[in-house]
């Protein structure tokens, strides 16, 4: 299953949502999950998960690009370049960005990665613009699009712009669900938010604002929040139901059943 996580506006939390979905799918549904991302200057995802860039001369991205250009690397071999996310099981990250490769090479690599990864789930954090070729390639290769929004008016306006530009109808053909990041019930009831934006409520889920998400991602330990969420710790208890709803919406749209672990 290939999932592309996109947003009509910047700074909506695509990387946060991608990472939380990846963690939840890997650790509650027992899927092998690979996280990847577009853009050569976007190092948010590795930073959130505490993955430091390493210079390994035997397996660096420049070498992979050379192998790609000479057709000397197979789809299966690219798996060896995945990095294990510390403190997790079943979750890996394919770091495709590097200062030593060009944007064009980065796009080529991302495309190769998405087409060849054999994990149960491949989640792509689409940080590039909607009009870029790599974004189109990722969307075309995906089974489901997860659109990240917030309750802000700007996000709603950008969404309307995408609708008028025909982007939404294209995404809908692929299968589109919405996740509202940093949801705050004091801003608006969730039903009112989806109604205001003209979205089908059943295709929407939310991730309630929680300071611990920011706190753990700032120190590169976002993955440490999940055990607390699953244990329904009072500090993050809202996220238990939120993540459950997110997985329910996503897996239902991929034709899969969800088994949520009992506490």
């Amino acid at each position, binding site marked *: 299953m290939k999932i592309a996580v996109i947003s009509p506006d910047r700074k909506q939390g695509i990387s946060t949502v991608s990472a939380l979905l990846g963690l939840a799918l890997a650790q509650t549904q027992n899927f092998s999950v690979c996280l990847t991302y577009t853009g050569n200057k976007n190092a948010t995802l590795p930073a959130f998960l505490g993955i430091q860039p390493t210079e390994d001369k035997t397996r660096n991205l420049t070498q992979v690009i050379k192998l790609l250009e000479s057709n000397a690397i197979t789809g299966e071999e690219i798996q060896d370049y995945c990095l294990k996310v510390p403190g997790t099981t079943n979750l890996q990250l394919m770091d495709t960005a590097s200062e030593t490769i060009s944007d064009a090479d980065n796009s080529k690599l991302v495309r190769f990665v998405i087409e060849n990864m054999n994990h149960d789930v491949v989640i792509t954090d689409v940080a590039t613009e909607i009009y870029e070729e790599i974004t189109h390639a990722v969307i075309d290769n995906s089974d489901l699009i997860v659109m990240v929004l917030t309750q802000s008016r700007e996000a709603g306006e950008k969404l309307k712009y995408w609708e008028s530009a025909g982007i939404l109808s294209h995404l809908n053909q692929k299968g589109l669900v919405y996740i509202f990041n940093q949801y705050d019930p004091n801003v608006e*009831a*969730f039903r009112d938010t989806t109604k205001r934006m003209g979205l089908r409520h059943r295709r929407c889920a939310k991730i309630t604002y929680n300071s611990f998400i920011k706190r753990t991602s700032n120190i590169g330990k976002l993955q440490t929040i999940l055990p607390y969420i699953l244990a*329904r710790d009072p500090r993050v*208890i809202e996220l238990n*139901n939120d993540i459950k709803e997110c997985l329910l919406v996503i897996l239902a749209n991929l034709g899969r059943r969800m088994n949520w672990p*009992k506490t």
Partner: protein
Amino acid sequence: MQIGVYGYTDKRPVIYALLKLLQATGDVALFSNNRHYKRLLQPGETQGHMANIMIAISDASPDEIFEEIGYTNDDFEHIVFDIQDTIPENLSLILHVKSYPPNEDEQMMLELLGTYHTIKWTYDGKREKDAINVIPSASLWKSVEEIETYRALLPSPSKELNRGLAALMAPHLNLSVKNTLALLTRRWVK
């Protein structure tokens, strides 16, 4: 879970504490015919939301209310019914909120309710065995006024009510009593 709250006395401190607790664990709805809850909604509304909690003020029976609001009970994780004359089906928990001994009508309804837990406002100074005995202090009603004025679910100042509800609700929510109490007493900042 579906909870029925019954009693002729003012049940608001119990209902607000329940809403505060339940909203942390899922989508919540409150159905009542008590017009007082309109204070929690926008002016003129009889159906709407306070934070993410759906509140519907209606004389409709528990069966009719879903048709009226346009949702089904599956749309909510938890539903709190302010029980009047009709007892909703499939209640997981029934609470009876009382003060002085109930009159005949209330007593007759209690016999129909089956198993229920009692929360008593001890206006008469008498504590009841196996009940959550709560002193109806000025601070308890002040907190109700604050909740309605600011439309924010502030914690109840009553330790007896919080501890009693935590012990009662924890098994139903699959939480520890300590964590349930933490949710009930949690202030604005999460």
